[in-house]
């Protein structure tokens, strides 16, 4: 059995920024041949954003960046992370000959994935209708902010806008603050990427059994809202609008983050059953708490959480997060240290599970990526290479797969079709 379960499947990936690229790399990790399509007239902006701190490049046109600082396009580690395992080609599909090359590639592929604003691919006859004519069983997964129909279909939005409009932000925050605070990472993008990958796989299963392809419309907004069943049902059933409950839980107490020894050190503790509560009191040397009428059953503890949190905090502050975790886990009580990137990177559990891996890039050296959380026992997949450099696989794809002659290839390069 090959270690790559999706070996033999080919995906044409028009993704850019976050959600599109992440959706396709999940599939690449599993062994599919994912071909990322860019051009020097339309680079993935992910090449210049984020960690490489290229503030000076923001608000510049792709052309000017390509002309002035092409080497800067190959240095962003987060771009490499989100595009790992992919091949990279550059073709200007806004020109008819370029679009035709893409159509030839689609004929030899199983899936097309994109996260353009609705309508972009249609304009160049690369939308589902056009592609299904030349490749009837093609699967097109099209992901965008608000979906491809409805009054807001053309709306664009960045990650913070997805979590705002999806309702997610309205339940994130401190109960004692007026303004919900929302997450500080691109939750909606990640959620959409994972659902996109799932949808693509389900469509492949259907195609393998029936020979039918199809079009899949994914809204980042709806993907995020689809996970909010609990608060949505609260409104549907009782017309009550849920608000942030911070670290409070409807059935567990104590439940939250408690301060530990050292600056910025916290431990999470969650006590659910009476058995856990008794064990918690005993192991922390507070057996008396079980007789305190404020805490003697779950209901009382939920009513007196402020007082209880205060007492728990006075105990935790004498220890490090790992010490608290060890003491409580020995008594079978749920606790875990608050981890930041550095702590996770050094953690033995993540080490043993291969959650962080090193991958080499020809221009920027060795980088650290997250590994593969979909752990399939027999066919685990793997990260075969870092993100592609601009056009690095043009020869393999255009000459090898599409059979262009050397002369034809050179002409297309000269005419900036392969560009």
């Amino acid at each position: 059995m090959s270690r790559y379960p999706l070996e033999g499947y080919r995906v044409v990936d028009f993704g850019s920024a976050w959600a599109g690229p992440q959706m396709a790399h999940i599939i690449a990790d599993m062994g599919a041949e994912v071909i990322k399509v860019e051009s020097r007239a339309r680079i993935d902006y992910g090449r210049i954003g984020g960690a490489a701190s290229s503030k000076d490049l923001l608000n510049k046109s792709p052309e000017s960046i390509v002309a002035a600082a092409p080497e800067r396009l190959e240095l962003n580690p987060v771009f490499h992370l989100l595009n790992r395992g992919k091949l990279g080609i550059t073709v200007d599909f806004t020109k008819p000959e370029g679009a035709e090359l893409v159509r030839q590639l689609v004929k030899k592929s199983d899936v097309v994935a994109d996260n353009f604003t609705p309508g972009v691919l249609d304009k160049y006859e690369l939308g589902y209708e056009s592609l299904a004519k030349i490749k009837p069983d093609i699967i097109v997964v099209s992901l965008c902010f608000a979906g491809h129909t409805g009054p807001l279909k053309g709306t664009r939005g960045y990650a913070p806008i997805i979590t705002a409009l999806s309702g997610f932000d309205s339940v994130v925050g401190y109960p004692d603050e007026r303004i919900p605070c929302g997450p500080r990472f691109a939750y909606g993008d990640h959620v959409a990427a994972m659902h996109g990958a799932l949808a693509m796989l389900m469509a492949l299963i259907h195609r393998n059994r029936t020979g039918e392809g199809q079009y899949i419309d994914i809204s980042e907004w709806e993907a995020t809202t689809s996970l909010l069943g609990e608060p949505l049902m609260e409104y549907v059933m009782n017309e009550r609008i849920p608000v942030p409950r911070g670290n409070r839980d409807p059935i567990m107490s104590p439940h939250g983050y408690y301060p530990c020894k050292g600056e910025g050190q916290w431990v999470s503790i969650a006590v659910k059953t009476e058995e856990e509560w008794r064990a918690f009191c005993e192991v922390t040397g507070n057996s008396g708490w079980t007789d305190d009428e404020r805490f003697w059953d779950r209901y009382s503890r939920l009513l007196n959480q402020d007082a209880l949190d205060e007492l728990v905090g006075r105990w935790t502050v004498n220890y490090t997060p790992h010490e608290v975790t060890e003491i409580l886990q020995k008594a079978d009580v749920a606790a875990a240290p608050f981890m930041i990137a550095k702590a996770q990177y050094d953690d033995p559990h993540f080490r043993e599970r291969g959650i962080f891996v090193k991958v080499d890039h020809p221009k920027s050296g060795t980088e650290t990526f997250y590994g593969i959380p979909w752990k399939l026992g027999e066919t685990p997949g793997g990260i075969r290479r870092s993100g592609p450099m601009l056009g690095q696989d043009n020869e393999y794809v255009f000459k090898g797969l599409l059979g262009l002659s050397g002369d034809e290839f050179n002409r297309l390069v000269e005419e900036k079709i392969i560009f």
Partner: protein
Amino acid sequence: MVKQALAGLKVVEFGSFISAPYCTKLMADMGAEVIKVEQPGKGDESRDYGPFPDDIPHPERSGLYLYLNTNKLGITLKVETATGVAILKELLKEADVFVENNPPGFMQRLGMDYVKLKELNPRLIVTSITPYGQTGPYKDYKAYAINCCAFGGVSQSIGHHWREPLTAPISQGHYQAAVSGAGATMVALLARDSTGRGQHIDISEADVWATYHVGFGITIYAFGVREHLRKGYIGGGWTYPARRVIPCKDGYMVLCAPQLKQWLKFLELMGTPEWTQNPRYRDRHAMEDDYPEEVDSLLTPWFLERTKKELFELFEKNAIPFAPLYNMADEVNDEHLRERKFFATVGRDEVGRLKYPGAAYKFSRTPWSLKHPAPTLGEHNEEIYCGRLGYSSEDLVHLRRAGVI
């Protein structure tokens, strides 16, 4: 009738609360047959959780249970008995997929670890979803959603850096693990098309947080950026407003304008107030990093005079990517979602007809659909035990008396 993408797929779920149930809901809603195995008498933990109509608890009226278990068949079975084990094995002999979220070692104690199940049915895919996974030094640690947020690193990006960190709300980690479980299961099904063999899938909630969600933080950390993720949006280096929440007349708006032209257009809509000439409010990096609250307060009066709807329309028209912070009422009543038929309605005696959130995706040929409400406790006992496994109705009485079903 339209065929669904997973029609014919046979799934057995033996789990509780959110992760395993949501994982199989994703399959059931796309046409798979999911048999949900619950403890006799008590049933799935989510039945006690609520929300409940009029706040009156009832195991058949919990909103969380109803939402997570649509389109499934429900049976009761006490698996911790010899007969229970034998019956579950009979079901698994015919199944394609088995999804469970019991603690590591639990299935082994029942004599049903993957090695045994593989002997029983080599084509079976077993998907196990746990907080920390089946391997590693912490595999047996007890953990609830907040603990996975802590260890998985997601809380480093939620909350203010000057206060205690926050957990991801409403058990979101369980859902993330469920989506990953479903995706990995689909990969295993595609692999089985060529190998003919099933396999064991090990999904850890903490792994999913630490990778797809905040794993980019490790890449940035290793690259040499030591910034605290709770400061600024995604590690800093952004311009005002990277992500600001500003109160308006009837709620909040969220502002995010990475492009200068978006910001300038917005100032123009505000009538280019005098303060915009002050150099202090022209350095968008400093405004974001050093005194964002001060800038917020300059914008707030203008926002307070306008409603979410008014503002959203104005910004939409001018291609400014600011949007209202929607609450659950806004979602349920939104025109765009209504036109896209995002919410679906299904009825059941105990609660009547209710609106449920739909799926993340719209398939053109094999649509997601909400055909059946979640099963009542043991609703399909007769159908499965008598119809499928060949027990007589008399056997059913004995099994019931013995507390097996």
